[in-house]
């Protein structure tokens, strides 16, 4: 029989050390709370972030497998991180804000879900986060930018690849602006400024890119939060009435099982694992999983449908330089989500991404049809003249796109997650439009050849969406489970709609809002 070791109670137990969990931990620890973070993956430090696309793979998901299905899979293992800092350690620091029109799509367009909050509710939190982290950008150049404070740091410079491709946007009468980045253009504290060497995907060890190792997690630790690695949470423990969490049960690398009591539990294990954990936390009062009394758990799983445009230019583009997330942004296609019949969604271009020769997003993979001498010739040419940009589309939250449990089990004998995702035909039509536009832009920029590849899923959202009512959502606007108030969900799984922007800035703003709400109502929660 397995022995369960009882641990002393903590104030706040955070599951996952990524962008959301670390921020909760930092806010709570600064307020004097006794904070414990359980991280399923291994410990990583800045010294582990080796500049290599081969070694970078160790940052990707290697935990419990995820069974994927559907006609547009979410790409879980590529889009998820594993270890200290979670996915945010290998995220690219592209931090645009959601727009006003992302929050009420059901009311405005009859599509998807409405958020229980508006942009105006979130704006102060965006502003505070960007001031604290130190974002770089050019707010005036972002003609589409929703209201908010200007960036505290100047924009990062536009290098040769960006300059070349920008000509295409200008020729088409479109607009570009420097990407708003959670990357230092100036030194900030102990964090250096960016040196544009294009290794963001392998993790940024000099602290220029705001990953949790140098931001929230560092602050949390400084204020006493403790993080424990290789600790897999097995379930949330509830009281007999099923209306209050008592803590969690977790298993360490040695196989020992612990019962960890906590006044508040924050689930920030990223989209798929957070939903899985709720499924695994069934209880007499929650027989179909915690947060699932209205059969909503896991539903509205989303990923940004994305297409990459590639080209070869006569100019030297130095594609290995810059940042993995790109240099320029265009959101001309954001304002009207129903610009054409049978088409839905906003989209954005991230332009002139730094590319290394190898890996999934590398130069060689862009022409997966080439091999032998043709590939060799291409590599020598493309590493000098390559250009790339990626288009990111809205996804429509569909109820049947869902995270559930598989019949298969992992090494801990727990059911693994299943993630089903289909793309809505209206979004597929939008991606086709976007690809055509992208190829036109590259031609207008003077590309001697341009091409595209298969549609891919970028970022993972939904599954434990927020809303006003338990009948329509899993969590309230602050991320609390409707059914159990001292369980907070944090991360992109809360998003009722995806928008068409990279999610980490919004994740951070929502986490700050949720964490402060938790502290404000502490006496009722504990």
């Amino acid at each position, binding site marked *: 029989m397995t022995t369960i070791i009882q641990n002393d109670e903590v104030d706040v137990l955070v599951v996952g050390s990524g962008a959301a969990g670390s921020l909760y931990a930092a806010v709570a620890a600064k307020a004097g709370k006794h904070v414990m973070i359980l991280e399923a993956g291994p410990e990583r430090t800045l010294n582990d972030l080796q500049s290599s696309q081969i070694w970078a793979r160790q940052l990707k998901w290697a935990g419990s497998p995820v069974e994927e299905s559907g006609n547009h899979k979410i790409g879980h293992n590529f889009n998820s991180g594993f270890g200290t800092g979670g996915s945010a350690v290998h995220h690219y620091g592209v931090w645009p804000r959601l727009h006003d029109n992302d929050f009420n799509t059901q009311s405005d367009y009859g599509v998807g879900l409405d958020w229980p909050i508006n942009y105006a509710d979130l704006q102060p939190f965006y502003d505070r986060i960007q001031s604290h982290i130190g974002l770089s950008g050019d707010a005036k150049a972002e003609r589409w930018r929703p209201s908010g404070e200007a960036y505290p740091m100047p924009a990062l410079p536009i290098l040769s690849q960006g300059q070349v491709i920008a000509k295409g946007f200008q020729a088409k009468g479109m607009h570009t602006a420097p990407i708003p980045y959670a990357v230092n253009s100036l030194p900030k504290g102990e964090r250096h400024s960016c040196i544009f060497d294009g290794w963001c995907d392998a993790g940024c060890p000099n602290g220029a890119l705001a990953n949790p190792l140098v931001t929230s997690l560092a602050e949390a630790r400084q204020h006493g939060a403790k993080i424990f690695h290789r600790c897999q949470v097995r379930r949330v423990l509830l009281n007999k009435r099923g209306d209050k969490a008592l803590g969690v049960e977790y298993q360490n690398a040695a196989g020992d099982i612990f019962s960890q009591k906590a006044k508040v539990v924050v689930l920030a294990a990223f989209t798929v694992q957070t939903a899985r954990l709720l499924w695994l936390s069934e209880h007499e009062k929650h027989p179909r999983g915690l947060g699932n009394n209205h059969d909503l758990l896991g539903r509205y799983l989303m990923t940004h449908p994305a297409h990459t445009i590639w080209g070869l230019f006569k100019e030297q583009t130095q594609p*290995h330089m810059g940042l993995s997330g790109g240099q320029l942004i265009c959101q001309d296609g954001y304002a009207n989500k129903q610009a054409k019949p049978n088409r839905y969604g906003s989209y954005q271009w991230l332009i002139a991404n730094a590319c290394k*020769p190898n890996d999934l997003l590398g130069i060689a993979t862009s022409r997966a049809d080439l091999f032998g001498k043709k590939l060799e010739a291409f590599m020598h040419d493309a590493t000098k003249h390559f250009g790339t940009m990626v288009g990111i589309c809205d996804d429509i939250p569909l109820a049947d796109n869902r995270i559930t449990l598989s019949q298969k089990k992992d090494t801990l004998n727990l059911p693994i997650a299943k993630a089903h995702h289909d793309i809505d035909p209206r979004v597929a039509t939008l991606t086709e439009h976007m690809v055509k536009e992208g190829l036109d832009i590259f031609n207008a920029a003077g590309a001697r050849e341009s091409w595209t590849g298969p549609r891919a899923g970028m970022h993972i959202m939904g599954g434990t969406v927020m809303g006003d009512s338990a009948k329509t959502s899993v969590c309230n606007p602050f991320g609390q489970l409707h059914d159990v108030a001292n369980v907070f969900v944090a991360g992109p799984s809360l998003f009722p709609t995806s928008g068409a922007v990279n999610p980490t800035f919004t994740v951070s703003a929502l986490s700050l809002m949720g964490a402060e709400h938790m502290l404000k109502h502490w006496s009722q929660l504990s």
Partner: protein
Amino acid sequence: MIKRRQFLQASALVFSFNVAGSWLELNCAQAAELKLPYQNFNKTQALDLSRLSEGLVPGAAQAGAVHFIDQQLQRDGAENCLLMIRYLGVDPPFKPFYLAGLEAAQKAAGEKFNKSLALLSDDELNTFITAMASDALKGWQGPPASFFYFVLRADAVDAKYGTELGFADLAVPYMAHIKPKTAW
């Protein structure tokens, strides 16, 4: 084109080899001198895999593509496995995938040319890979041929172009924040 200095660097390129349970850092020449066996492939499989890798990416064999795959498969299922397959929707362990794909390729080469992969001429290998990439090899039994092509090509690209030496061959400045201790 690799210059003499780079060739010398190549011969000094260090890989980790598992010898009797211990990891040794050796270059390919040292490994050959010690006649270290591959851990996951027999001699025939290794020769065929090497030939196929070379056909996909010229220079991949010398760059250590088979060593790369072999070494990473020893970490199979573990989080330290650095093969791209870990995020291509294939559940670990990955060794059965590679062995099944290689066996299918070996049989297909035998049926098409009555030769082993290792003995295919350049033209034959080119014809074979073209058919493999488009799932046009008759009687292929294993993981989809085009997917096996994609995975093996990615591994060969890693070995050839994903290291400091590969960057140098392309005249791409490596500019490491933290230089990798070993190529992989």
